[in-house]
């Protein structure tokens, strides 16, 4: 493991991942799809899915199992021929020129697709050759990627001796060999220990920070919230909402919950709290607790504490802001881990 290792350096704070500002001639989106659809018999697996991922942007695809995420990704990487619509990778049409388009994508499938009998290095070499990397350049690039995923020390051990997290890291490293413009990660942290999970997320954030575009799907809401600049919520094969985290959360309304623990005259305090501007609803939830529904919860706290001054003392506060999970629940009527 090295200090510059984005997959394994827990102390390095994530680099803010803002898409670069387009210069005079706007470059095409790193990945763009329009009207993607796929039917299996009577089942519409994917319907009219379209989005753009700007260069350097991290884009999340969020949806429950069976929502159409993997079918969408399979169409984006050329594994499934779309029933309709098209995919462009850095302006190259995938259907018209699949070889050039695929060369710019790094795809990491959900399952670990590596040869267990071969070493980590040999697996990387295999994929490097598939991507047409010249022999001499490949050896050096393999060392770089091994360093990047923090597995230089285990490079020559057979894959079957690796832990789940190490396999995941090589699985991701495999997709980085050819320096793709777009990295597509399908549930990259399933079944890994918290330490490896953190290493993977840190590494992904670093890659995005360095300018790589990312399409990320995950069951873990907090991962998507952390890694992605923009998120699409997909359900029943359709994108039902898309935007930045803030934009999506605003869809459920801006109401935050504020839990107050109080000592003193709660009846009076309740009446005073109801009168504070921004408080939508207030209710006693116990002998010493009041729950408020507010707009801009955390900014309202000083006004709330001032309002009860004289009749009660605030001993504890908790502000619960709506998150993507709440948005998801609101939009789809189901939880993500269905």
């Amino acid at each position: 493991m090295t200090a510059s290792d984005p997959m394994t350096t827990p102390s390095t704070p994530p680099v803010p991942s803002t898409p670069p500002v387009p210069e005079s001639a706007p470059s095409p989106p790193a990945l763009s799809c329009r009207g993607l659809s796929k039917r299996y018999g009577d089942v519409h697996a994917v319907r009219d899915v379209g989005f753009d991922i700007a260069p350097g942007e991290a884009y999340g695809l969020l949806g429950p199992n069976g929502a159409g995420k993997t079918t969408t990704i399979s169409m984006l990487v050329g594994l499934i021929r779309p029933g309709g619509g098209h995919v462009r990778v850095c302006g190259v049409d995938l259907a018209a020129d699949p070889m050039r388009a695929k060369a710019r994508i790094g795809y990491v499938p959900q399952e670990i697709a590596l040869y267990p009998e071969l070493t980590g290095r040999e697996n990387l070499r295999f994929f490097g050759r598939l991507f047409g990397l010249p022999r001499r350049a490949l050896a050096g690039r393999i060392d770089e990627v091994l360093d990047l995923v923090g597995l230089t020390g285990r490079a020559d051990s057979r894959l079957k001796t690796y832990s789940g997290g190490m396999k995941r890291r090589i699985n991701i490293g495999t997709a980085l060999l050819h320096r793709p413009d777009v990295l597509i990660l399908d549930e990259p942290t399933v079944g890994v220990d918290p330490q490896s999970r953190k290493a993977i997320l840190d590494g992904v954030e670093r890659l995005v920070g360095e300018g790589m575009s990312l399409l990320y799907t995950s069951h873990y809401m907090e991962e998507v919230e952390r890694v992605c600049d923009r998120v699409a919520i997909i359900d029943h094969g359709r994108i039902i909402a898309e935007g930045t985290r803030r934009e999506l959360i605003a869809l459920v309304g801006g109401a935050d919950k504020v839990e107050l623990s109080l000592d003193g005259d709660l009846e009076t305090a309740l009446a005073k709290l109801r009168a504070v501007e921004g408080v939508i609803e207030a209710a006693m939830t116990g002998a010493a607790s009041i729950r408020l529904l507010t707009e801009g919860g955390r900014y309202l706290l000083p006004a709330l504490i001032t309002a009860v001054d004289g009749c009660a003392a605030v001993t504890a506060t908790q502000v619960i802001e709506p998150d993507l999970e709440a948005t998801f629940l609101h939009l789809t009527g189901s939880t993500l881990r269905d």
Partner: protein
Amino acid sequence: MSPRPVLALVAANLRRHARDRVGLFFMVIMPFVSIVFVGMAIGDGGGRLPVGVVAHGSGPVVAALLDELGRRPDLEVTRVGSADDLRSGVRSGALAAGLIIPDDPAHLRLVATQANGSGLAARSAVDVAVGRVAAVQEATRAAVAAGATPAQAAAYVRQAQEESGRVAVTGGSADAADPRGFAYTAPANLLLFTFINSMAVAAALVESRRLGMLQRALTAPVRRTSVLLGEALSRFLVALAQAGLIVVVSASAFGVTWGDPLGVAAVVGVFALVATGAALLVGTLLNAPDQAPAIGPPLGVVLGMLGGCLWPREASGEVINAVGRLFPHAWGMDALLTLARPGTGLTAVLPQLAVLAGMAALLLGAALALFRRRALTVG
């Protein structure tokens, strides 16, 4: 189409096979264990056929006959006490054939079973020996009749024999007997193990499919044909390596003569294509890697039995040998045994090669089409 992805797949697959110790044991050790043990069991005797002789008289003709039979390089002559012992020896298989030489050597009696390759071969060898003695007798009689003394006649005949000895008889009849010992078990095990091990390594293909390796390979800038070719070439090279190893080791360690290298290369190459087709078919149809070693080798053993790879073909009935003709092993055995005979070459095995090539085309065609549809489908 770039060869790089094809070579990448071949290199990765061969490396995987090289790491499979059990698989290597079955490829490198087992064939030779089988060649040696079965070879010893079905006897060698320098390829000589055991022939029993019952001789009552002791005249010059009897002596000449015994001498001529004893000179035959393909016969192991044993004197047997009685005609009954001789018959029982032939019946039990201890003797390939028997010859009873009565007091009057003009009426020899041959004891042999009908439908037995060794019996037929022994009979034809005895016929040749008897024919030679008869020819000497006839020539001597003719010389004496022409006025020569018996001593002169004998000298003339000896001179004639020496001159005729320069004439070599080459070629063999189609019904010539199969060889015994390593000369039989080496080609038999070449076919048996090339096929069985091809089926066993199909497990690696099932594993590749199960892991999603082939699908992932298709997300690289690689054509489906390249993946297809890479997987097929990997199996073909394993089959060729297995066959090549058996040819080289059996020739150098057991002195097995394989015959015309071009003919052997053609037969082995076409048979390896058949095995590749079978391996791809198994690798495409099965869903769990464990099924391949469970189904492949038993199937290979049954086909080997029908094709005469486990025991000599002459020990099987006509029905089994006829059924065996439906499968590649019997044709492969035919071709390799034909090539092992002196004076034969590629042209002698063209019919067998044609049948094997047809089988290879059918199997490979079906396997590649199915593999493309099942394992490399872009839906």
